[in-house]
């Protein structure tokens, strides 16, 4: 795979990784008793989740726009 392809796939994987981390480990746990259920484990995790989504879809942008003359 070309270098560009590797970076694009890397962006998708990184984006998915951020999403999975933010959703399952960073954001508030899926429970309803106790104060800890109302706070995220890592603040701003929802923003990280959104960034993960943006990163994953930006891979398409990168792949398309970065056509160097050698390609």
């Amino acid at each position: 795979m070309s270098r560009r392809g590797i970076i694009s796939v890397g962006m998708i994987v990184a984006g998915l990784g951020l999403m999975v981390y933010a959703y399952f480990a960073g954001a508030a746990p899926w429970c309803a008793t106790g104060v800890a259920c109302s706070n995220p484990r890592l603040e701003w995790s929802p923003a990280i989740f959104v960034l993960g989504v943006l990163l994953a879809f930006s891979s398409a942008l990168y792949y398309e726009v970065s056509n160097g003359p050698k390609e």
Partner: protein
Amino acid sequence: MTRYAMVVDLDRCQGCRACVEACKVENNTPSAVFWMYVFRLEEGEFPDTKMTFLPRPCQHCNNAPCVKVCPVGARFKREDGLVLTDFARCIGCRYCEVACPYGVNYFNWRGPEDAWAPYGIPFDDADLAAVTGGAVPAYKNPDHDLLHGPEQRLTSGSGHYKGVMEKCTFCVHRVEQGLMPACVDTCPVGALKFGDVEDEQSPISTFLRNHEHFQLLEELGTDPSVHYVGGTPPRSDAREIERPLTGV
């Protein structure tokens, strides 16, 4: 570990609404907002009708739908059983209100500047000021500006925070000081009881052991912390005979 619960004795409740008034004074709630509310219900068809009163505080459910749906965690359940609203975090989406089967949630439709407008009381009236000694508007307990609990959040009293949700707090600011909620304290016939159900020797635990009790809308699985004694759940044909003030 403490876990608070309330018992409502329907055999004793006589519909005086002192609890409703006490809650309103203690928590400074706006017009048409009834954190503690008492239904006056009629069941059956004339001449076989029956009239009952049904006090309805927030049920502080152990499996609370309102806590689950809050998008920002402003509505939360403490380890001691109280379900509270963080007025500093609430974004006013009113999802807790539509999720609650009991209808205990109220939204601040107005801001503090004109919160008293619906009552139509001219607080700048000289005669009124003379009688109230200049207390304008009604006295607000300074405890309501404090942060409460080990979580240190802004959760007691109605601050008339515009665009924010509120509901019965089991008077968290009183409970923390070892007092009873205002409604419990005020009931002239002792129809309301409050205490720690984790403590098996507490009066409320003893009372619950000795009396048959039910919860409202048990079949929904919300597991309320409010137990009703001495009556039956409202029948499906029960209807309100009196409507409260609804003008905000």
